[in-house]
């Protein structure tokens, strides 16, 4: 029985490291290969030993697909390809291919810097991994091999984020990755055509939430920054090099321009230039507004945002600094935080999630006395703010996407069990489709009924046409022929052609039946009576009386013989070919009713 199997190794009822295995029509695909930032041992990576019990990964997996550049979707990729040993193709969009190594490199540097980890992937491994990537365009159908094809759709969320359709023959699965159904400041909304996949695997981060407008959060952010710099305070915004940082830069740049502010804004990482370069390069991936205004002014060319120098942190007066890393767990952002934490005029704005163990997590949970190295206690007097700018579809958006794609069934990942359960019921009720939510390690199996393409011979089609019945669109039509299955292809041809092609001779199959008649006359006379009866009854058929005494109706042959034991009974031997089976049965039934009385 053909089936689609899905096993999440990560993102099954959790929001951690996405990694979903899909088997479809004998092809095995890994969707995302993410890392969990909350662990600092090998639990940060999905447990790849479960992919295949035996054999090489490269032989087992047909491809890996990465939906976008966030580390919880691609962070384990260099580990998987360079340390675990996967040597096959990796697919992602062009922007993801460009930006992914920057984030991986950023993370590697933090891990090695902070933890002194030696057993971690190196720069060379990141590069070698990226060389295995095949970049795809939106809506381009890419043949992974003769049977497996993939196609990317716009997902919003972050630059380059894509949903992927995976298709083998007539079976298909759509994986959304992370997506956003409402456009934001620099990106558009996710979109997919009515592709009616067998299965839609969708993220469900905000499965139970209807998100308020992002505008309110943006206004709030600008207000807080503005108030702080107005009273002479400094604002620290810890970010990761790419993604949200660019979004916030656009916000501040526009605001500074409008308000004619002179307070300096710095970006601490040396990566700004490259990040902005990519945002400029992939302008087609941004939203309409940015594309429209591009001719007059490129939104990613910042007038007010300058490169940071380490000495600037000690300058007096207000300033805004974007610094990496985003969770205040090492490097530049932590160093600036230490300097500024003691002044209540200052403010730190955390624009993203922080894992346990980081300074970011501590201050967000309200801790104000932090033990630092050397038993020093850092008292945090500066204001601490959390602002979520994450761009996921909310419950309404998810339902909208399901409606758009019209899948046969839905599978939820990248969310919490409780929230998923709610959404699952809602989807099942509204769309009348099955909805699954496997935990990590659990396999969902969906039976499918694949439609197999069959070629029809021209001869057969012509013959059908000759019968005068013109084909009607979308109306199923019965067609008789011989199905030849040869060299993994299927063809329907006329039986004569099949015989010819296969070098076979035709066998004649005849059905026979004996009918007993009460008739004392001689056999020849009985045959004659049968002939007359049939001639009268079957006006449309060719009924013949042959010289040997037998009667034929089309291919049906009727012979009369004497009964061996009862001279008053005659036996009619009726035989016919399978083509005339209907008529044969009818005749037998007719003869069993007896012959009409002969005129005496």
């Amino acid at each position, binding site marked *: 029985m053909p089936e689609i199997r899905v096993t999440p190794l990560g993102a099954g009822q959790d*929001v*951690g490291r996405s990694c979903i295995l899909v088997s479809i029509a004998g092809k095995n695909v890994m969707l995302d290969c993410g890392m*969990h930032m909350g662990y*600092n*041992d*090998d*639990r940060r990576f999905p*447990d790849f*030993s*479960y992919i295949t*019990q*035996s*054999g090489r990964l*490269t*032989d087992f997996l047909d491809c890996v697909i990465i939906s976008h550049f966030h580390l919880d979707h691609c962070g384990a990729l260099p580990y998987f390809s360079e340390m675990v040993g996967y040597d096959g*193709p990796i697919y992602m969009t062009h922007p993801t291919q460009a930006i992914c190594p920057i984030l991986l490199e950023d993370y590697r*540097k933090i891990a090695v*810097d*902070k*933890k*002194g980890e030696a057993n971690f992937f190196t720069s060379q491994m990141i*590069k070698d991994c*990226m*060389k*295995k990537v095949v970049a795809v365009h939106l809506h381009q159908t890419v043949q992974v*091999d003769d049977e497996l094809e993939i196609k990317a759709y716009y997902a919003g969320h972050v630059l380059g984020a894509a949903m992927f359709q995976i298709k083998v023959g007539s079976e298909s699965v759509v994986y959304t990755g*992370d997506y956003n159904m409402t456009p934001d400041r620099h990106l558009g909304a996710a979109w997919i055509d009515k592709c009616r996949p067998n299965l839609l695997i969708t993220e469900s981060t905000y499965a139970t939430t209807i998100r308020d407008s992002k505008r309110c959060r943006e206004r709030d952010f600008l207000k807080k920054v503005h108030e702080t710099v107005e009273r002479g305070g400094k604002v620290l915004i810890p970010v990761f090099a790419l*993604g949200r940082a660019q979004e916030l830069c656009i916000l501040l740049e526009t605001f500074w321009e409008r308000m004619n502010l002179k307070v300096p804004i710095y970006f601490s990482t040396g990566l700004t230039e*490259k990040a902005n370069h990519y945002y400029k390069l992939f302008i087609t991936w941004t939203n309409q507004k940015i594309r429209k205004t591009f001719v007059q002014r490129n939104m990613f060319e910042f007038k007010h945002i300058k490169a940071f120098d*380490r*000495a600037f942190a000690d300058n007096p007066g207000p300033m805004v600094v974007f610094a990496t890393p985003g969770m205040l*767990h*090492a*490097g*530049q952002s*932590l*160093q600036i935080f*230490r300097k500024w934490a003691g002044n209540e005029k200052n403010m730190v704005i955390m624009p*993203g*999630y922080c*894992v*346990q*163990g980081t300074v970011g997590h*501590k201050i*967000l*949970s309200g*801790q104000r006395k932090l033990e*630092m*190295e*050397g038993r020093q206690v850092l008292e945090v007097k500066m204001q601490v703010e959390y602002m*979520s700018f*994450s761009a996921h579809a909310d419950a309404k958006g998810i339902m909208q996407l399901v409606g758009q794609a019209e899948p046969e069934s839905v599978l939820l990942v990248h*969310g*919490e*069990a409780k929230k998923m359960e709610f959404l699952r019921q809602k989807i099942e009720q509204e769309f009348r489709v099955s909805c699954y939510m496997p*935990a990590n*390690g*659990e*396999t969902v199996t969906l039976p499918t009924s694949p439609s197999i393409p069959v070629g029809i011979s021209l001869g057969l089609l012509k013959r059908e046409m000759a019968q005068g019945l013109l084909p009607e669109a979308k109306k199923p039509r019965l067609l008789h022929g011989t199905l030849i299955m040869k060299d*993994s292809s299927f063809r329907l041809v006329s039986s004569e052609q099949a015989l010819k092609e296969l070098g076979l001779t035709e066998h004649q199959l005849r059905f026979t039946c004996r009918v007993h008649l009460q008739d004392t006359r001689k056999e020849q006379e009985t045959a004659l009576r049968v002939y007359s009866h049939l001639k009268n009854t079957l006006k449309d058929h060719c009924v013949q009386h042959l010289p040997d005494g037998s009667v034929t109706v089309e291919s049906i042959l009727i012979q009369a013989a004497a009964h061996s034991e009862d001279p008053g009974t005659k036996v009619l031997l009726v035989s016919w070919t399978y083509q005339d089976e209907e008529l044969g049965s009818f005749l037998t039934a007719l003869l069993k009713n007896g012959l009409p009385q002969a005129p005496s």
Partner: protein
Amino acid sequence: PRCTFWTLVPAADGHQEWDSNSRLARSRGVAFSYLAVGGKDRRTSVLIMDPECSRLLPALCAVLADPRQPVADDTCLEKLLDWFKTVTETESSLQLLQDHPCLVELLSHVLKPQDVSPRVLSFALRLAGAFAAQEDCFQYLQQGDLLLGLFGEAGALGWSAWSIPSVRSGWIQGLCALAHHPSALHFLADSGAVDTVFSLQGDPSLFVASAASQLLVYILALSMQGRDAGSPIPEVAAWPVCAQKIVSHVQESLHSTAAPQVTQALNVLTTTFGRCRSPWMEVLWGQLSPLVASLLKRDPIPAAHSLVDLLLSVARSPVLSSAACGPWEILAQTLHRLSPTQAGPLALGTLKLQRCPQELRTQAFGILLQPLACILKATAQAPGPPGLLDGTAGGSMTVDTLLSSKSACVGLLCQTLAHLEELQTLPQCPSPWPQEPLLDAAVIILRLCDGSADPSSSGAGRLCGTLAGCIRVQRAALDFLGTLSQGMSPQESMLQVFAILLKNLESPESSPTVLKKAFQATLRWLQSSVKTSGCSDLSPDALLFLGELFPVLQKRLCSPCWEVRDSALEFLTHLSQHWGGQADFREELQSSEVPMLACQLLQDPESYVRASAVAATGQLFSRGLQATPTSSENLQAQQGLLMDLMYILSTDSEGFPRRAVLQVFTQWLRDGHADVARDTEWFVTTVLQAVSRDLDWEVRVQGLELVQVFLTQTLGRFRPRCPYAVTLPEATSPTPHPEFLRTLCRLPLFEFVFRALFDCDRPVAQKACDLLLFLRDETAPSSGPQETRDGPNSASVEVALQRWQEGEQGQPLGDLEPEAMLALLRSLDLEGLQGKLAKSSDHIEKSPQSLLQDMLATVGMLEENEADCY
């Protein structure tokens, strides 16, 4: 205690070898990842139950028991469990529970599961298991029927949360943890847990099912513990009840017609035979091997992959491989019965065995060779020299697989090529190794892929159609071809190899990944040609090949794909590293445009390529392999490159090229490269000026590396050296040459290193500290630190250092006199600093106190941002 590398400390019972592939085993190891070599004191200082943790624990237990308080993120409970496991490794669990009654209260509270979240349930089950691993603690928990309540039939199994995989997983892991002593065994037998474990083998969660199988192995081994000493092992019927139960379950499963059940049984046996080394296994195998053999009579053979694993596990076991009922016959039968794709891994595994009958090795090798033999046969033009496996029968299944469908053909070929590649590098590699036919096969496969093979025979025609343009096979074949360079090949074959490599390198159809493999294989064959020619020079054939290769390389350096340009540059770097000194090579290279193109790529838009171009041109120039032929132009060109690289170092927006420049500079300094040697002080000063402003800490670390090379060289210059002088260690004790010290003070070297010492990035500070320690040991006599402390400008310097340490990096260090520098070096507690820096910088945040504080602090604050990941 200066060691900075991390290691696993084996568990007391030595079961760290317990299936090293499973996450279960690894998660045990995780608990130890905080431990450093020689760091027992650190373990006690960081990971024990200290008063602060004791103080926080009751509040945390109360939070965990309160269903209205959502627990922080998933990782917190995992880390908490890691910590408890570590604590129970060193302390008495019983004492721990008695000192902290809140823990028992938490476990008791879990008995009312309606009040507990599934996460906490799973955590509590695992925690209870960890405590009960010590027998006295087990008894203590049993007294209150706590364990039965948790793990018995009335416990977890009846909870509605049992339907949640993490709870089932917690249940199994808890049992795994406690199964360490005879009392635990009785408990397992009496509580009905074993039957539940049987059913969990078929769990829909892979993690639960796999853990269940492992737990069965564990229980079996525990039941049989102590039965190995002296007396003969009885038959299974006389084994302990628990062991018998498991064995009969395995037997039943092997009889089953359902493939998943057979798989489960085979997996249990594989782990058992892989893990244990005891004589009772011989009895077990003796009893079960007929059943295993009977699987071969079924069609199709159920659970073929698991069967292969089992047979290899048995064959590797020292107890079983030498037993009377050894695995060889079944192995041979299985090799014969399995399909070529299934038999491949078994054949490779068999060939890797240390001890194995020769016939079986021959059979196994034949299976690995079969697909390539078929390819050779199908594509043979005329009866030629002997191919692979000539005269042997069989192979029809292989032919069927190769011709049945594209995916089957590609799968079998890739697997076979990878297996043979692996085999050739092993000491167990079969001898004689059919080098020539294998080379022929690799070459013909590549030809089938690039469409240049003759498709005249029907088999070849079919294969051409199947393999044309197949990147997967091309990559596998190129990898294999590269490995074949290790063997001795006749000249004809080498020519054939060079031709096909060149074809792959120049073909416009070749994908970037294929090209990369082709470059790698080419490099290996060039190296092997040196070996063949008997001296370090390239053979005439190889030189001829180079003449054709450089135009191709030129083309590849101009590829629109950055991957290709980068691979080509990496290849060029390797080439000039190996043969840069050889006249013929130099001539070929210099007559091409390759060096010029490499130089142009210093301005490539892609930073990876710029970095590789830096490495390649640095290598070329250090070998004098620049494009321009005349010597005056040479000089100009070289100086031009030095300035180009300096420019990249100070202006490139990305770290890779800047790091590459420093690597080249450090190498140039080390090699005494003419441009650098001309004015080393200017060179070092200019480099350090650029590096000190760099935001990339790895660039700064490499700057320190360059300083170290400079120091070592300068020190060597000022120290009298006589290779024949016999001196006592004391005689070499440092008496710093005044000029050496003056040189150091003249450069901005100290400012750079001292700034680095207080760098916010730990590796920079660590490297600077090591460097200063080296310098201090080399320059400052061992007298006390007091003498020249108040030199002319040491006070201002100390003030500056103080500021830097506090994070204010603005103030410059000012001029430094040699005496002040020496005094400063002596006054700093460099050893103390080195000790601090050796620790991971998050050791405080990762401490149990920090964890408990964080978990308590997040109570009530979660709803806002818990799901907001990215």
